[in-house]
């Protein structure tokens, strides 16, 4: 099974035309050519890939993040189980 890092690396390569080998734990998203909108989309892809919800504050904190920061956050969210829904959800 792919590690969290490998999955993030694959998403970056598939969706953002980033060369896979240029993605290291130390890379910042900015250095990989991602802007603020790309980060929003990356969070969406990460949610799908790991079946988690990234809370809004975590998303904001990731703006200057390195790939390792993202991996650590994903790890934390997976351990916490399903995070609280972001914004409003429909009443069930």
């Amino acid at each position, binding site marked *: 099974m792919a590690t969290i890092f490998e999955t993030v690396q694959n998403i970056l390569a598939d969706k953002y*035309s980033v060369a896979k080998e240029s993605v290291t734990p130390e890379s910042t998203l900015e250095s990989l050519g991602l802007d603020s*909108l790309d980060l*929003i*989309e990356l*969070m*969406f892809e990460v*949610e799908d890939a790991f079946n988690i*919800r990234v809370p809004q504050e975590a998303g904001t904190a990731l703006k200057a993040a390195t790939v390792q920061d993202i991996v650590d956050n994903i790890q934390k969210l997976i351990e916490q189980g399903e995070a609280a*829904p*972001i914004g409003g*959800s*429909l009443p069930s």
Partner: protein
Amino acid sequence: MRRVVVTGLGVITPLGNDTDTLFSALMAGQSGVRVIAGEGPRGPFTGVGAPVQFDPAHYFPPQQRIDQIDRVSQFSLAAASMAVSDAGISFTDDNRDKAGVSMGTGMGSSLTLEETFTQLLLRDPDRVKPLTVLKVMNNASAGHIAIQYGLAGPDLTYSCACSSSSVAIGEAFRQIRHGYADVMIAGGAEAELAFGFFKSWEAMKIMAIPDRTNPSASCRPFSKNRSGLVLGEGAAVVVLEEREAAMGRGARIYAELAGYGSSNDYLHITKPSVEGQARAMTLALDDAGLTAADVDYVNAHGTATALNDVTETRAIKQLLGERAYKVPVSSTKSMHGHLLGGAGALEFVISLLAMHRRAVPPTAHLDVPDPECDLDYVPGLGRADQDLRCVMSNSFAFGGTNAVLVARQPS
């Protein structure tokens, strides 16, 4: 007064994605209308429409994130890129402050909206794609075009149903005439062949009954057996320039955009009025300093609804008097369908091509004359060797917005 000329044309249409292919198809009376199939929530649906054959990879570099751009804006960008290269103009720090964009769309990003609500209501009520707002906002086309070419001037979007892109071009014309801009990229686009939008138009009971033996002949403007409009998709964009500047850089000039008329019926949300339509045509001619005697071709709004075609015929007669019977009037919607917010721009481009190529495109599928529609609609095939001094393109919209553009030979 500053004069405005057209120096570039670009199209994405059900009849082809360049002006040569489009105009040849029109002259031959070919139709882009066909049976279309889509996915509804409970399985496939079929209908009659005029879709565009469009491969984004042909227009966008691989690194461009076109999944962040709705189909309607993809059409706009592709048509704009054709128009800009056709005009041979480049935008630099010397001209960008007075270069702008003006686009029209009626239904906007229909496909993304539909996908969003389908996702939210049928699959996951928790979240939608992150950049949905940026895809569905109606000014996405104009914004992307301005960014693509570095246009620092006016960035405008008009939404007035079927007149949207005629208004967008007319208002861009005024920006240049009154000195707010020297160059405007102007036009419109529509990509509304989505299930919910298709059903909404169907519910209006003004969509053509599909012709069972020949679906491509379902749209029959001015014919006694017309049964309504056929939805089409696509985009058309023109480059407008201040005349002296265009001549100064040695640009090829298709035509002078000489006049624009804008009026409202102020009667009913859908029902057209002879007076409102005739007023817009008169205003456009007055604006151009021309008279009814100068008009050599009218590209009709000609939707093939029972009401539009009779009303428009009467309005043209009111404008042109006895001369109405001598001036060719055609509805090219019979072949490319109704592009709604993109219709006015496409039909304006077709009118300019007619003047530039000295040929009048026909009204296809006009098989049964209607005594109430008794003008020369150029039935069947187009006519070559026609000297057109001045052409008029009509757009009349739900909401009552009438917009008419008048162009003449460059001088």
